[in-house]
């Protein structure tokens, strides 16, 4: 039984399609990144998993339960850090955790949950006085209550500072180490690259690709750039003749070569050296996921 499974999941509003025949499987124990631009359908998918929104067609399951038929069971299996949420200003941090503990009937000590998310000293403060980062950590703490099998995080780093992002990343890893399935959505690539086992890329309500980060690199004909610093500017190299070289740019003291095959780089370096210029520095840049992502989404838009 998968942690999350959707089949033919479709959500249509009057004149727009938010999700189109969406098939996704997230296995137990993995960290799955759900990547796509804003408005791609990420939140709609999560809203359906939590039964905030009902699909027009198709099915969704969380740990074998249909959210529409057994919302309570699904919400017990899921811990969620939603996007666009609010907390109760007049209640303290501890009271929020206590609320989650009571609803889960899980008997955790609120203090230990507060400590896990770094709010041990702020438990008595009303949440109205919390910073955005503290609120985010508190909401994350509430999601952890009841030891959920699946942790769903919708844009977990929105509106918080880089330190907070780093902390959330560490908490995600910690949870994954405990065997929790983590499903998180983001429009920020670095976050996916930093923690995910697999990535699903969504655009325009359709799943464009699902693979490991490396798999996605390979799939899109990995492309890297070789930058050579040279003491003299070479001419007439005819590097484009070499197999695996796609582009060549020569400027003052610098040769930039686009490679479709990494094995071509030694041939390129040899040829440059042979021209009489000596190479003083070598840099190889692998294609960033950003480029892949741009390609994925623009290809999709063109299709």
């Amino acid at each position: 039984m998968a942690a999350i499974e959707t089949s033919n999941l479709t959500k249509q509003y009057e004149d727009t399609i938010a999700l189109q025949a969406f098939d996704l499987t997230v296995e137990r124990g993995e960290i799955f990144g759900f990547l796509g631009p804003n408005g791609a359908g990420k939140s709609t998918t999560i809203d359906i998993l939590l039964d905030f929104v009902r699909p027009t067609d198709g099915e969704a399951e969380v740990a074998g339960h249909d959210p529409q038929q057994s919302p309570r069971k699904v919400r017990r299996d899921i811990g969620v850090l939603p996007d666009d949420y609010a907390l109760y200003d007049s209640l303290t941090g501890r009271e929020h955790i206590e609320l989650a503990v009571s609803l889960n009937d899980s008997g955790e000590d609120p203090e230990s949950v507060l400590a896990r998310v770094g709010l041990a000293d702020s438990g008595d403060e009303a949440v109205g006085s919390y910073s955005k980062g503290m609120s985010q950590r508190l909401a994350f703490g509430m999601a952890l209550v009841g030891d959920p099998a699946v942790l769903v995080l919708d844009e977990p780093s929105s509106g918080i500072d880089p330190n907070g992002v780093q902390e959330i990343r560490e908490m995600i890893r910690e949870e994954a180490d405990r065997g929790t399935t983590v499903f998180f959505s983001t429009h920020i690539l670095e976050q996916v690259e930093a923690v995910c086992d697999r990535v699903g890329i969504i655009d325009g309500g359709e799943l464009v690709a699902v693979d490991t980060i490396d798999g996605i690199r390979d799939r899109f004909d990995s492309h890297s750039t070789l930058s050579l610093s040279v003491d003299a500017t070479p001419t007439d190299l005819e590097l484009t003749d070499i197999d695996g070289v796609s582009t060549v740019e020569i400027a003052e003291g610098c040769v930039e070569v686009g490679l479709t095959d990494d094995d071509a780089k030694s041939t390129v370096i040899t040829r440059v050296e042979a021209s009489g210029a000596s190479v003083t520095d070598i840099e190889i840049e692998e294609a960033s996921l950003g480029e892949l992502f741009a390609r994925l989404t623009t290809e999709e838009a063109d299709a």
Partner: protein
Amino acid sequence: MNALRVIAQKDFKHSLRTRSIWVIAGAMTVLSLSHVLSFMSTPIADQHTRPFILAVAQFTLWLPLAAIGVGFKSVVGERSSGSIRVLLGQPGTRRDVVFGTYLGRSLILTTTVLLSLVVMGVVVAVGFGGIEAVDVIGGTIALLLFALAWIGLTVGVSSFVASETRAIGLVMGTYALVEPLWRNLVLPLFSFAFTGSSRVPSQATVFYSLDEPTWYLYVNRLSPAEAFNAARYYVPELIEGVLYGTAVPGPHAPNVFGLAVLLGWATIPVVVGYRRFESAELQ
């Protein structure tokens, strides 16, 4: 059941710490009390043998407004702020949210009404030289039914609609129809339907007046305010009847109907609101 109770507790605690709710409760007490104080020095006070029953009537105008203030954001506010996404991210259902909130807000309104009544009771006891226990118990029961009717309607509307503006509009519109416009607009329409004339029978001073036509005894009690005005006499009479075996003056049927109307306002809108909320998209 557990989630419902937990949500009710959360709602009660949250409301207890919300200043606007105490401002509303204070205003309700002061405004209702000002009526009592204003007629205390008039001949009405001297003639009236049941001052507490007269005093609770002064809530008729203000308690509904307090209930609306306490309740109109209750459910729709969770939607517009987004706190419902956190709440329903935890094990619980939409039913728990609506009925738990209803329970929580009913408790908070009941608490504020009881506090107001304590103040009112002291003023009446001092100003009129004593009050009857039966009147206090019966009047309090009638007033709490009236309070539940309004909080039920308000939380029901708050569950039904998707925006706070619509919630306040709908519930204030209902207030206008059943209170200020009741005798001038709604009852004449009913009268026309039943008798062919839009002339409304003059208002009875006490509930057991039998001069009115039968249709009027029932239709008039469809307004929670009128049902309450009958109940504040009828309930103490009932209690007295049970305690001392005295005969209850006046007809039972329209007054029992009036109590049922209050319970109807307290429950039916919440059920209707819940059904709509159950099928709503919570985005």
